[in-house]
């Protein structure tokens, strides 16, 4: 068999154009998800074979335009120019050609080999509109193919057109220059000439396109073009651009960016006027009726809250079942191994370090899968945009976007899926802000700590105290959000300009692919990091080991066990004492003790300090560590020898006020290792470090303030 030829096809398109469903239909589940280099914008690549070609399909981020203002748009244009895919397929929403062809026109200017996929053609047909395909083909200078992405219709034809274009590109490829009116055209010609003369390298960007971008005030392109020039030539070019922009604005009375934008819209409008018969029915008609219910002034919020409540319940209540199966499978495995393996340090590493680590990774998997199934449903159906519409006023008060509400709320269940859910936010600013605030929503793993402390010190008012802690988290998020919005993110206000797509019924295939994608990212990209971190934490908790001490203890325990029945309790006591000694002497224990001066002003005992460090593995571990360090069985909830009793005991050195400060600290301090890994994955290392740092500082300050002021007031 002849060797297959390789071909790269890039998919471009507006958000909501059904680009993803076309991509899914083309490649099925054979997709790799990663990030574009240097930015946290998702890159999806799929593979297929068609007519003897090995085709790599790259799904570009959905954009409306190709400016330098958004990361996504910069990614698209630099990919198209630098990587030069063989063919670019522009997936357009046929029901919304005016908006979509605006991008087509810009792709044409970029001199790429273009195929236009008229997607959602079924909706277009049922809207009784008519389009002269021959004419639109001629006007765009690119082959047009009708497709219905979610059904897979027309996908082969789309690929055929792409392959045809590659096989005899000369015949099909036609450059259609867009006229921006006499004023712009004149200066464009001059600028292009100047660029040619100065032999400026536009790094593969077509000169005319580069000239247009410079007129639009695109600083990135201007810098790129002038970078290779001598200082003289560069300043000459900059001056020429400035002059040209001024010329346009004096001649037309509007600034150049506007004039050019209007020129593009005008071209599209003209092309459509020639080739399209307007639809006779409004495809938003059905949507409008649904919207009258979903965004109704009175019904909107109850419906929204009900849907989110269902999503929350599904994620965390229904998810709890597979979660418990997984964790019992893990503990069964650990139990089995520890009986099989000889009692040794290696066995401890495998059982507690590795299996424990794997366990802490996979227990979140059911939550993540269910949550993303739900979120994909809300997104694909078009409801997410409405939810943002309803919630924006409220969230904007915190400096957030309407869509931030869902991740924030999910934070009460678990920060990990919540942080992953920030992907639904379009702007980087909103994603970072939301990711920084999500951990302040008290996750369910922190509840056992509150229950313990509140139960120990505020017996009859425990419920109210725990509720107060949750409220403090929300208030902290509001204050911190406002602070960040006014300081860190002041310079980059993200516009809320958001499209409300028509309601559509999502397809099962699309939902499943999306869910699987998230699960894969979680397991592949985050699982490894979490595993390594868990093993390191295990090491820090298990070393150094004083062999002699362990042996003495074990000998004593063995001799007690061998003795009469009465000695068994003494043996048990010795065993807990050994466990406590081991933690105390470990690196974590030493660090906790060394850090005691830092947490003492907060009213914490050194045992609490140690438990906060082990709590980095998972917040509920705080409870078990305290149990071990206070020489009690942490599972007992009441009476003598229980942990609450041990904490209440005056010898523990903890006052109710200190306990309250401790709960606040657990609420506010750095989230667990899994959440931190998720933060790194979503917003990068720099913001992860910031997140960890600011939460530590915040937790300390709040606990310090509460404890010290409380002490002064004599509480």
């Amino acid at each position, binding site marked *: 068999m002849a060797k297959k030829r390789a071909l790269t096809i890039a998919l471009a398109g507006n958000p909501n154009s059904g680009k993803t469903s076309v991509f899914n239909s083309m490649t099925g589940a054979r997709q790799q998800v990663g990030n574009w280099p240097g930015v946290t914008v998702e890159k999806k690549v799929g593979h297929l074979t068609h007519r003897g070609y090995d085709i790599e399909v790259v799904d570009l981020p959905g954009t409306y335009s190709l400016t330098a203002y958004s990361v996504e748009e910069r990614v698209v244009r630099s990919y198209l120019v630098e990587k030069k895919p063989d063919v670019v397929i522009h997936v357009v929403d046929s029901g919304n050609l005016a908006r979509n062809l605006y991008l087509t026109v810009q792709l044409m200017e970029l001199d790429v080999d273009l195929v236009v996929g008229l997607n959602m053609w079924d909706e277009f047909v049922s809207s009784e509109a008519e389009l002269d395909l021959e004419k639109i083909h001629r006007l765009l200078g690119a082959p047009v193919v009708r497709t219905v992405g979610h059904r897979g219709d027309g996908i082969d034809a789309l690929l055929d057109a792409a392959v045809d274009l590659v096989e005899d590109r000369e015949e099909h490829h036609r450059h259609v220059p867009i006229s921006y009116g006499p004023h712009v055209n004149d200066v464009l010609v001059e600028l292009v000439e100047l660029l040619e003369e100065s032999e400026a390298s536009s790094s593969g960007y077509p000169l005319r396109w580069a000239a247009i971008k410079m007129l639009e005030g695109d600083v990135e392109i201007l810098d790129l073009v002038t970078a290779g020039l001598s200082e003289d030539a560069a300043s000459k070019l900059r001056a020429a651009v400035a002059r040209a922009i001024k010329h346009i604005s004096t001649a037309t009375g509007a600034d150049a960016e506007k004039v050019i934008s209007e020129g593009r819209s005008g071209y599209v409008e003209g092309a459509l006027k020639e080739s399209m018969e307007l639809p006779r029915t409004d495809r938003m008609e059905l949507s409008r009726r649904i919207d009258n219910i979903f965004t109704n002034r009175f019904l909107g919020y109850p419906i929204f809250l009900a849907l989110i409540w269902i999503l929350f319940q599904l994620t965390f209540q229904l998810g709890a079942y597979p979660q418990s199966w997984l964790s019992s499978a893990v503990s069964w495995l650990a139990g089995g191994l520890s009986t099989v393996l000889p009692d040794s340090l290696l066995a401890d590493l495998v059982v507690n370090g590795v299996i424990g680590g794997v366990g802490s990774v996979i227990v979140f998997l059911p939550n993540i899968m269910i949550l993303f199934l739900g979120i994909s449903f809300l997104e694909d159906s078009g409801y997410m945009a409405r939810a943002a519409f309803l919630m924006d006023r409220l969230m904007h008060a915190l400096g957030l976007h309407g869509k931030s509400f869902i991740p924030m709320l999910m934070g009460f269940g678990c920060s990990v899926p919540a942080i992953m859910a920030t992907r639904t936010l379009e702007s980087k600013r909103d994603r970072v802000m939301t990711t920084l605030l999500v951990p302040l929503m008290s996750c369910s793993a922190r509840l056992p700590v509150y229950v313990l402390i509140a139960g120990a010190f505020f017996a009859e008012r425990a419920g109210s105290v725990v509720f107060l802690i949750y409220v403090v988290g929300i208030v902290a998020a509001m204050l911190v959000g406002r602070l960040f919005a006014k300081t860190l993110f002041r310079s980059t206000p993200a*516009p809320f*300009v958001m499209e409300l797509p028509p309601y559509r019924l999502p397809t099962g295939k699309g939902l499943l692919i999306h869910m699987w994608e998230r699960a894969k990212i979680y397991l592949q990209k985050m699982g490894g990091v979490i595993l390594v971190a868990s093993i390191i934490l295990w090491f820090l908790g298990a070393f150094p080991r004083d062999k002699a001490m362990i042996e003495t203890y074990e000998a004593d325990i063995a001799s007690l066990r061998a003795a009469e029945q009465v000695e068994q309790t003494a043996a048990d006591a010795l065993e807990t004492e050994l466990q406590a000694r081991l933690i105390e002497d470990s690196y974590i224990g030493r660090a906790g003790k060394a850090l005691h001066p830092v947490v003492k002003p907060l009213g914490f005992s050194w045992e609490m300090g140690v438990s906060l460090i082990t709590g980095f593995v998972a917040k509920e571990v705080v409870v078990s560590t305290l149990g071990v360090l206070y020489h009690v069985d942490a599972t007992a909830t009441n009476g003598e020898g229980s942990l609450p009793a041990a904490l209440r005991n005056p010898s523990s050195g903890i006052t109710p006020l200190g306990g309250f400060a401790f709960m606040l600290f657990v609420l506010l301090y750095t989230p667990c290792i899994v959440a931190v890994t998720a933060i790194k994955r979503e917003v990068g290392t720099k913001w992860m470090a910031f997140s960890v740092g600011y939460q530590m500082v915040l937790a300390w300050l709040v606990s310090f303030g509460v404890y010290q002021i409380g002490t002064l007031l004599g509480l």
Partner: protein
Amino acid sequence: MTAELRVPLAELEPGEAAMVVDVEGEGAFRRRLLDMGFTKGALVRVIKLAPFRDPIEYCIGGTHVTLREQEARQVMVEQVTPTPACRKHGPGKRGRRFGRGLGRGRAWRRRER
């Protein structure tokens, strides 16, 4: 059309429509609006206010777009009468209705012929 008729888009009530005259502001925000079709001469129709009167849903060029109130203040429009329905393309095809007018029977179709 005189300058007195220029008002910020945010001041229109649901159901009203107007023609875009200018987009103020700068940078990413203005460009995004331009890219979304808020160019001179485009028709915008106010569809709905969110419960706290912010953000606001508009129909422009056949798509539904939401803007925050403060953003809609930066779009200057001229009111047009009679109020046209939300339609796909700018002012090019005058008198052509988009969508069925409730209670108006099929008048728009007859006019077309």
